[in-house]
């Protein structure tokens, strides 16, 4: 059960969060079909660090990129994603 430091809410339990996908599997709807299918259907799936999009679904509902290690489960970085917000 990770503790994920949400950029907005601080350290919270993993059950409040949802994993969406890796940052390199984001499909740009405006892009060409070949690039889109490469992004959708190929993964590095490394036994190490990868950048992943998560959402604080049961918390502030905001999205973020976690740099997470897939063996040790260490989370080395968290970066908020989202529209411009009033601090």
């Amino acid at each position, binding site marked *: *059960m*990770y503790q994920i430091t949400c950029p907005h809410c601080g350290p919270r339990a*993993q*059950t409040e969060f949802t*994993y*969406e*996908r*890796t940052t390199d599997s984001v499909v740009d709807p405006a892009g060409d079909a070949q690039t889109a*299918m490469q992004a*959708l*259907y*190929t*993964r*590095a*799936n*490394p*036994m190490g660090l*990868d950048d*992943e999009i998560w959402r604080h679904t049961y918390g502030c509902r905001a999205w973020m990129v976690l740099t997470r290690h*897939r*063996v*040790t*489960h260490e989370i080395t970085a968290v970066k908020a994603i989202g529209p411009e917000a009033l601090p």
Partner: protein
Amino acid sequence: MKTPYSAFSLLRGALNGQKHWEPAWRDPEPRASYDVIIIGGGGHGLATAYYLAKVHGIRNVAVLEKSWIGGGNVGRNTTLVRSNYRLPQLHNFFEFGLKLWHGLSDDLNYNVMFSPRGAMFLGHNDGDMIKLAERGDAMRCDGIDAELLTPKQIAKIEPLLDLSRDARFPIDGALIQWRAGTARHDAVAWGYARAADALGVDIIQKCEVTGFVKDGNRITGVETTRGRILAGRTGICVAGHSGHVAGLAGLRLPIESQTLQALVTEGVKPMVQSVIMSQSLHFYVSQSDKGGIVMGGDPDNWPSYARRGQPTIKEHAIAQAVTCMPALSRLRMLRTWSGVTDMSFDGSPIIGPSPIDGLYLNAGWCYGGFKATPASGWTYAHTLATGKPHELNAPFSLERFMTGATIDETSVGPFPNHR
């Protein structure tokens, strides 16, 4: 030849302190090259080696295992064996395997304890029952056994299920496959290892593949922790670690590895007869021969190789199992462990040539690899022997994701975590 296993030879052993048994497999040093190298000493890898030697007469084969054979997913699953899938490409593939299971102990001369005690999917509402009838009709039309059960019939098989009408998830009926059941997972790995070793296959443990030997666009061998080993054809067969090993050859597969938790309770007298699953709930239950209730649910839906699960995911599966079978409540969880499942992006396996000459793929088994062991071994042996897929694994090509011919049994789509 090794002393064949039999009741008689066991009795002979009673007199001589069992001294006459030879090691079940040798521990050879790796040779410089082989006709075929199989990466991964799990159930699928060892079965592939056995059928290469037995069916295709190709014995100059090495199985490379990074730690000890049977230590990966074949040693971590919940031992279910069945072919009751809805889509024809899948149920025909698994049915071919189920027929092999029925003769496997004699074929290997190693009792894998395959026990066809029946595997049933429970239906909790009309929608479930229609889906179960559809699955059963699709199977029956392709010659596979499937039978609908009424609650009364279920009660005779599994009296401890909560068949009351006011249950939180009432049980309206079930679809059972009587020829399905369970097998002793370790015995499958050891049985295939012993039989393959007897036919001359080299099983090399403590030998991790760290890279590939490339000659232009052709793979001609592997670099390992015990030196370089060349091969005519190299077959990746490492289940949950497919993404990592294929990555060493520069391939990006349509696979993410997820943790699948399982658990066993303390041993109790017989209380669960068959294998119990559900059409709309996410748990499955069976009882081992030692009396432990073996249970599992959905994978943890984010990528991990750690073989360490998130506790509340397991608790949710247990809650559903206890709701359907209240008698489980006062048993105690004895041990919980995790496998690493290579979740493919349509839920079906990938068995066939890779885009690189001389390199072949057997991966994407998600959480259903154990039941496929004999069929996967047979078809992958055919593919490695002939260079072309067998008719049964032809639909499971890597290209299907780009052409769109995906085979999506649970119709979840390209993100295994979007369940």
